[in-house]
């Protein structure tokens, strides 16, 4: 089975976010980056399917130069090849344009299955895989917690609201968006890291993808990013650990009356 996994590099979860000069995104200098968490699970699922059924895992990312690090990490974990959609015309794309570009790469690779994380933790679009499915005219399913692969179809367990699930049969080729927790992602081994150095990492431009510039023109624009206004009535307790502990106990007893 040939599996295509889309990865995104996003600011590290604990990173302190500052706004850029235009106040329309965060400032990237002095941020550390990592692979978007659900994508880590998607990669792991791809690697496991390959280990079980044979085949190849191709990883792809769309992003600036720094994003090659995410691809190298994926190669070190066991992906076979990497594609970096790295044209200057492919930077800071909106959800539709991102999906167009990735779908074009899928069209060239012709995998049996494409996986994405269910959302990126930075822009939170949560739809790249679904948009790609429509662009490719492939079936899809979202928020997947288990995959059982057959010859021509998959049985996938889709998470629903409120603790419910549902099994769905999806014929191949298909796209699935993967939910965190579907598996236990591996760490890269030293051997894997060394092996990654000899694995192909290919850069692709808009032209390589066979796309005209209009294909990735924006459909939406972020004009401003800002810190949400605090509307909560939270009462902050201050002081040393002992002091805050003491005043919290006092408040839980006398104000909230829960002790």
């Amino acid at each position: 089975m040939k599996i295509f996994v889309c990865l995104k590099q996003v600011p590290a979860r604990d990173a302190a976010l500052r706004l850029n000069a235009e106040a329309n995104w965060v400032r990237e200098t002095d941020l550390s980056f990592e692979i978007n968490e659900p994508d880590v699970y998607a990669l792991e699922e791809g690697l496991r399917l390959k280990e079980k059924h044979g085949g190849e895992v191709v990883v792809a990312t769309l992003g600036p130069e720094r994003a090659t690090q995410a691809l190298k990490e994926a190669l070190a974990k066991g992906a076979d090849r990497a594609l970096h959609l790295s044209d200057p015309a492919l930077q800071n794309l909106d959800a539709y344009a991102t999906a167009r570009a990735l779908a074009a790469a899928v069209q060239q690779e012709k995998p049996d299955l494409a996986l994405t994380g269910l959302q990126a933790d930075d822009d939170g679009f949560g739809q790249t895989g679904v948009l790609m499915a429509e662009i490719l005219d492939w079936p899809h399913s979202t928020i997947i917690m288990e995959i059982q692969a057959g010859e021509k179809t998959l049985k996938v367990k889709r998470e629903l609201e409120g603790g419910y699930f549902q099994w769905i049969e999806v014929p191949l080729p298909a796209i699935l968006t993967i939910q965190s927790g579907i598996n236990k992602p591996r760490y890269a081994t030293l051997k894997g890291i060394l092996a990654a150095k000899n694995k192909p990492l290919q850069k692709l431009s808009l032209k390589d993808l066979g796309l005209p510039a209009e294909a990735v023109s924006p459909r939406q624009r972020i004009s401003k990013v800002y810190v949400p206004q605090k509307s909560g009535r939270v009462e902050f307790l201050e002081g040393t650990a002992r002091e805050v502990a003491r005043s919290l106990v006092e408040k839980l007893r006398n104000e909230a009356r829960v002790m």
Partner: protein
Amino acid sequence: MADRILVVAEDQEGRLARAAWEAVAAGQSIARAFGAAVVTAVAGANVASLANELAGAEISESLALTSPLLEDYTAEGFTAALAPVIERQRPRFVVFSHTYQTRDFAPRLAARFSKALIGDCLGYRREGDRAIFVRPVFQGKLLADTEPLGDPPCFVSFQAGTFREDSVRRSAQPAPVTAIAASLSSEAIRTHPGERFREAKQTVDLTQADIIVAVGRGIKSPENLELAKKLAEVLNAELGASRPICDSGWLPMDRQIGSSGQTVAPRLYVALGISGAIQHQVGMKGSRTIVAINKDNEAPIFEIATYGIVGDLFEVVPALIEEIKKAKTR
């Protein structure tokens, strides 16, 4: 001709649940702001009665899109049923509630019009004739003003609770209901869904808990759970967790609180190292008193907390355990 707004109302197990009415409320609000008319659409095998129910709201038309092939929800079926309606109605906005179902098919529908969904919005405003939608980014740590570009339609979904079910305007005179037989072919629906089910019975029922101590990723390692357990013990509390803790297998799934876990409303909820993502909040914001201990003073959990402690939980929690013990002996 006035602009149209198409509201897609979700049929949840044969009922119009809160999400459907919140979408109607959102559509009505945008319609007032832009002088537009609201048309609702509900899709399914047997949705005539739901369409009649929707017609009681202040809208201009209620559409029932029916086909036996819409009996079970599928993304492809719903996309195929709604796309021609959008082509005919030419709405300026297509409005959804941001449910799992919307996440599953609305982007597909939007892509059929070479668009994406402006998803999970927390509000909108009108500037001149432009609409600006407000979306959370970075897991709610920041907000982004987002403007649709190009021709309509613009596909937009709103986070649960952004518009209120009880703010839906009703009309004494029901709106006209139009039944539309969706022309679908079974080949166009390639996925085959099975029944909804729950995992084997849950062993802990956190919904009945009086006090909950919940841990998040700030706890760092499974060994450190001991600390939270000690706090739970002195408080006579149940232990709960955010999703990543259960994903990592540090605590069983039935301790998970949030949109894909349990919804709880204890008298006291103590959140240790939990950032307060919306999917966590929806499962616990009904708690009477919420204590949040987090080292990041910008963490969204503080938005809904009663008492906040900005600090390292590994310093605060031991002190807290000690103070509670002392208070008990007093």
